[in-house]
């Protein structure tokens, strides 16, 4: 298929693949299956660092549409690699068949570890509910997006398309992460103008002299009022605040066809990537759990143990102030497995406050494996943490919350209390730590202006970026745009009308 140009399919890749790697992959796949993993067919590509960095810069899709942001990302990666600051070992794409890129220069132990890790991801992609709605032919889809965008660039000019793309990317995070799973019964979008046209009261047809009797004025009056009311309600657009701002823009912004398509592409890709962000801890934890088991129980030769251990420890390393999703994930799975093996759950366990009994609690249920497989199928990071993070785990893992101390101007450990840690963690995970923003009114002030509302949850918007984002939003909406938010406890309406930024204080609540 021409749309997959640039991606080497499994048949061609086997030419590139060292026979050795192919053999190892097959072997590891066997082990993975013996543990009950159920990965997609996975093809491995061995590529050099510059190619791998290129693929990574495109978010895993070498055929992705052109944009300078990817070039910027590439520079970062290349610099990081050449200065020895960072190295990507592998990149795995949620697609069926699954594609994984391996760095050619990895040592053989590294390759084994990475292949085992990839099968963990591949299983997760295939079986996690949160990925169920993603496009499994995304490699093709991305290539199509790329082709369409390149066509627009040729037709309308690079800077025109780029400007618009910049604007779309500026609002790409304004999607409803959960809408994929709860299809909304949105009424078909009825443009306001259509309603305006139907404003005339439908009269009963009659001869002119009879009209007064057939359609008495009071009746006509009442009908008109009813229509007006309905119109007023309809005019409130959206009828309910809409979190999928991009969808709203697609439906109602006065865009040219190509612009609508570009916006749709950006939205499409945002939704494709969203589950990976929703399950970062779970997904990395799962892959790490399995590479660790497969490697230590099946694959490693005596000579390889030390190298493996060093690599694994590097991946699991924690830095103060940074939460390592690999580490948190793998430890949680292990903790859960242990608890369900020993029956440390349920009301009896919860009620027991005899420390001695708790320490020796083992009902020999052996349900651990089953439990973690169930968890990887249904949970996302938020529910995972919410349900399985325990006080004991927090203590064992030495978790803490930190905050910025303005006096010393540094980050300091604030608390080790379980409730606080959990709350802070969940807060960080909510909405990918993006602010919650909804379209509130698409006909603000009855002038077709767009008003968003920021659901303030303790953190103000980054003001300077918010203003620039409004400017970008204006390029899409083409009428004045506003966002209602709070700044230092005061209600604010930030606006951009095409020329001027403004900020007005609105009534406190």
């Amino acid at each position, binding site marked *: 298929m021409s749309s997959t140009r640039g991606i080497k399919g499994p048949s061609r890749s086997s030419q590139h693949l060292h026979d050795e790697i192919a053999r190892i992959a097959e072997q590891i796949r066997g082990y993975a299956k013996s543990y009950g993993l159920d990965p997609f067919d996975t093809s491995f590509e061995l590529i050099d660092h510059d190619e791998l960095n290129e693929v990574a810069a495109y978010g895993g899709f070498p055929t992705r549409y052109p944009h300078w942001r990817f070039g910027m990302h590439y520079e970062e990666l290349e*610099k990081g690699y050449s200065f020895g600051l960072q190295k990507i070992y592998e990149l795995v794409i949620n697609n069926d068949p699954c594609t994984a890129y391996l760095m050619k220069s990895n040592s053989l132990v590294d390759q084994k570890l990475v292949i085992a890790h990839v099968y963990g991801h591949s299983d997760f992609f295939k079986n996690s509910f949160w990925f169920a709605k993603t496009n499994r032919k995304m490699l093709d889809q991305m290539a199509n997006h790329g082709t369409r965008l390149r066509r627009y660039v*040729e037709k309308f000019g690079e800077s025109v398309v780029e400007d618009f793309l910049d604007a779309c990317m500026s609002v790409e995070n304004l999607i409803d992460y959960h809408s994929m799973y709860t299809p909304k019964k949105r009424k078909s979008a009825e443009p306001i103008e259509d309603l305006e046209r139907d404003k005339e009261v439908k009269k009963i047809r009659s001869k002119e002299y009879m009209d007064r009797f057939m359609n008495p004025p009071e009746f006509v009056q009442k009908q008109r009022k009813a229509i007006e009311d309905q119109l007023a309600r309809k005019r409130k657009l959206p009828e309910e605040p809409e979190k999928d701002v991009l969808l709203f823009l697609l439906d109602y912004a006065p865009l040219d066809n190509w612009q609508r398509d570009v916006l749709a592409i950006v939205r499409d890709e945002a939704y494709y990537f969203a589950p990976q962000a929703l399950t970062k801890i779970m997904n990395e934890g799962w892959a790490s759990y399995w590479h660790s088991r497969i490697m230590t129980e099946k694959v490693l030769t005596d000579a390889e143990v030390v190298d493996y251990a060093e690599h694994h420890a590097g991946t699991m390393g924690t830095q103060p102030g940074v939460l390592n999703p690999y580490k948190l994930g793998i430890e949680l799975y292990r903790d859960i497995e242990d608890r369900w093996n020993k029956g440390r759950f349920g009301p009896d366990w919860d009620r027991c406050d005899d420390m001695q009994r708790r320490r020796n609690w083992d009902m020999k249920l052996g349900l651990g494996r089953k439990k973690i497989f169930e968890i990887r199928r249904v949970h996302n990071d938020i529910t995972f943490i919410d349900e399985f993070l325990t006080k004991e785990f927090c203590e064992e893992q030495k978790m803490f919350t930190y905050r910025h101390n303005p006096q010393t101007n540094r980050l*300091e450990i*604030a*608390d080790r209390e379980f409730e606080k840690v959990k709350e802070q963690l969940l807060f*960080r995970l909510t909405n990918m730590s993006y602010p919650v923003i909804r379209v509130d009114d698409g006909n603000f002030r009855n002038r077709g202006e767009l008003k968003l509302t920021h659901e303030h949850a303790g953190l103000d*918007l980054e003001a300077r970026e918010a203003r620039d984002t409004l400017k970008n939003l204006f390029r899409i909406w083409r009428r004045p745009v506003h966002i209602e938010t709070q700044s230092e406890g005061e209600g604010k309406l930030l606006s951009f009308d095409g020329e001027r930024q403004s900020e007005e204080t609105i009534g406190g609540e």
Partner: protein
Amino acid sequence: MVKKIEKDYSRFRSIVRGKIKKELRKYITRGELIGKVGRNLVSIPIPQIQIPHFRNGNNPGGGVGQGPGDPGDPVDGGEPGAQPGAGDMPGEHLVEVDVSLDELAKILGEELALPNIKPKGSRTIQADKEKYTGIARSGPESLRHFKRTYREALKRSIAMGIYDAENPVVTPVRDDKRYRSWKVKEIPQNNAVIVYMMDVSGSMGDEQKEIVRIEAFWIDTWLRSQYKRIECRYIVHDAVAREVDQHTFYHVKESGGTKISSALQLCREIVERDFNPVEWNIYPFHFSDGDNWGSEDTRRCIELLENNIFPVSNIFCYGQVKSAYGSGQFKKDLDEHFGREDGRIITSEIRDREGIYDSIREFLGKGK
């Protein structure tokens, strides 16, 4: 194989370039760039190259971590107050981008509208070579590559199933067209020497020297882009002059009287000894606060300039940095004697850091 990312990468670079251009004045007046020169690259912080989003501000920033420590212990391990990349605005987003000095010079040239220098001397062979090396999808019709275009059109019409072997008419559409593209190669073959002279007498303070330093950096950057080979010599003087290395030039602190003529005399000696004006483009730059030891010495300076320095130099530049103690008399004297229109000398007054930008334009704007 040209990688696909190269195109996005160069697009990114050109945006960076535009950003730098827009804010060039700001960068020029900042001394910190010079400290960041390494391997002919400068790291330049670029504001807002990242695409803005609605994001949470980091006001009561915090999060969850893992590891030992008691409440109150710092988690970053850094020094207190060591906030990296402190801009003057909170929450400003800066990306550090490496820019080559060549590119910087080009931006400088474009933004200040600096004319390219016309080198003098017999060895001014400026070879421009255009080579048609590639194929592009757009270009002027005169460069259309017929064969390639035809081939594309043929491919497309076969693919579309409209090719008729009986009546093989192939009509190219816009998408099919291919054009020759070219690269220009320049081979400048000139040498230049810059002789920097600075008054380091007591009245030249640290700020004045910093201004000279910044200005010299930019002049250097520009001239380097214009000549293949550049040498720099440094002279400091108070009542006597001596030749020093670059580091000393910027850091030395002397005190005492000021005899500008001593520096000019030394400059003349250096040039006569090392640089044949037939082969070299010679740029003497002198910076001082304008104080000189009496009108007798000033007269001596003018003689030296007239008889020994002007004849061998492309241009003589005098930059007068304003200081609290300097009288600023020297520039006045020079201007009175030579007039503002003398093509052999440029004088410029640099009031403060903000003035550097305009001063560079004055010095380099003549294309000499």
